[in-house]
């Protein structure tokens, strides 16, 4: 099977997985809706300019979120990674294709309904179709960035075995610095330039700025994407050398 076809097959598998667990989707829909309402209400008290980016950040998070760190870490711990290594496709691409399908499913079933609600309640304004198209591309890059970072954390299970703590740290940094909880425009002027030097902002604040008419932000996203993938694959290359799977 050629690589694009294998990628497509993996993505379909991830998408089917999302559609199969309808209960989980319902729970995610309720929790994302509750978060959008909470964050949107609180930021609307601080001024009209903050609610929209905060809610859009929450919606973006449904698409860029990934559990690949957990999945890869578990595979390394229980040895099932051995089966993935025998397949004629790099492990990163195998995991990425499934995760992309899951992300598309989450966007369709959770993100877009939330967006429709935000539009209906006037929290987010309608923009031309082209802006929505670039927003989707920007979301895809955001997912690529988060995936690569998470992949590196998952690969670190080769050294640490338990990576729950690292996952916590990563989740917190993404939550704080990506713009999902605090819109970057709301940050104090002294802090914002520092936050914009880190990769996290391209995940949530990036797509929001693209939607707001700054397509140039996608260049920053692509640069961070390349850097994160180089980092993720580099960590994986080192991890493979160290990896030992017990037979049985």
């Amino acid at each position, binding site marked *: 099977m050629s690589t694009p076809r294998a990628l497509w097959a993996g993505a379909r598998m991830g998408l089917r997985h999302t559609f199969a667990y309808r209960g989980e989707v319902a729970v995610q829909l309720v929790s994302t809706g509750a978060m959008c309402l909470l964050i949107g209400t*609180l*930021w609307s*008290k601080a*001024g009209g300019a903050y609610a929209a980016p905060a809610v859009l950040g929450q919606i973006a998070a449904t698409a860029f979120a990934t559990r690949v760190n957990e999945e890869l870490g578990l595979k390394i711990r229980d040895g099932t990674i051995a089966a993935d290594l025998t397949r004629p496709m790099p492990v990163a691409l195998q995991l990425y294709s499934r995760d992309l399908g899951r992300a598309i499913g989450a966007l369709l079933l959770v993100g877009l309904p939330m967006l429709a609600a935000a539009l209906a309640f006037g929290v987010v304004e309608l923009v031309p179709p082209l802006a929505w198209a670039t927003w989707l591309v920007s979301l895809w890059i955001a997912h690529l960035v988060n995936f690569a970072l998470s992949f590196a954390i998952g690969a670190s299970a080769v050294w*640490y075995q338990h990576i729950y*703590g690292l*996952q916590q740290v990563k989740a917190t940094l993404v939550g704080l610095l990506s713009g999902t909880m605090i819109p970057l425009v*709301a940050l104090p002027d002294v802090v914002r330039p520092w936050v914009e030097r880190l990769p996290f902002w391209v995940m949530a604040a990036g797509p929001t700025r693209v939607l707001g008419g700054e397509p140039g932000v996608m260049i920053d996203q692509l640069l961070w994407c390349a850097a994160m993938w180089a980092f993720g694959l580099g960590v994986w290359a080192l991890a493979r050398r160290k990896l030992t799977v017990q037979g049985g």
Partner: protein
Amino acid sequence: MKLLAMIAQRAKVRLAAPRDLAASAFGNVLGTGTGMLFVLTLLHRTPTLAGWTGAEVIFIWGFAECVIGLFYVCFSGLSELNRRYLLGGEMDQLLLRPIDPLVQLLADNVSIDDVPSALVGVIAMVWALPGIPNAQLLWLLPVWILAAVLALGGMTITFASLGFYLHHRGTTFGLLLHLARYARWPIDAFPRPIAWGLTILLPLAWTGFYPAAMFLGHEPWSTWGLLSPLASVIALVVGVSAWRAGLVRYASSGT
């Protein structure tokens, strides 16, 4: 004694991976610190929130954060109930031992990683203290924190007990705690239907806002806050009843 031995055993297991424990505790503190930064950034843009001063908002937030931290320390086992104990078959082990299965479930999963999160909540409350009007009531604070932890525990036990009926990996635990975030904020900042929903339908406001409001002298919220211990008793009775009813239906997975 048996219970203490179980908790000590759990602590020993967790300490076997000290680097992960440290990273996890650091991650939890960072997570709580993130919440604190969220509050401070919000207050940087708006000095008051629905009529509550910055110090009051921080006090409510710190109170709720302390409650959530202590809740995780004591009740993390409920997050494992469906997947590990009911579907994975480990409930059989709990039923064979001479201690109540619910107590074993909780003791078996005590999470020392979350102690620092509770401490961050305490630090936030201490920080906000100079701006708190009813400071003479603060000697009641530990009791009201305990009441709020038990109220949240009771509600979570009720939700987790659905696992006995649904036979699903389920994420109601996470959902409930997601919704519990509302308890960290003054309830009158939200639309009225949500405020009532959090008071009566899914009474999460009793796990943070109401008990904290008792110390802040805002009527009618302070009076409502007096009822916190009663709310925790009701939540616990409902939770334990739901657990017992579920346990009757339990059928081993045979694994």
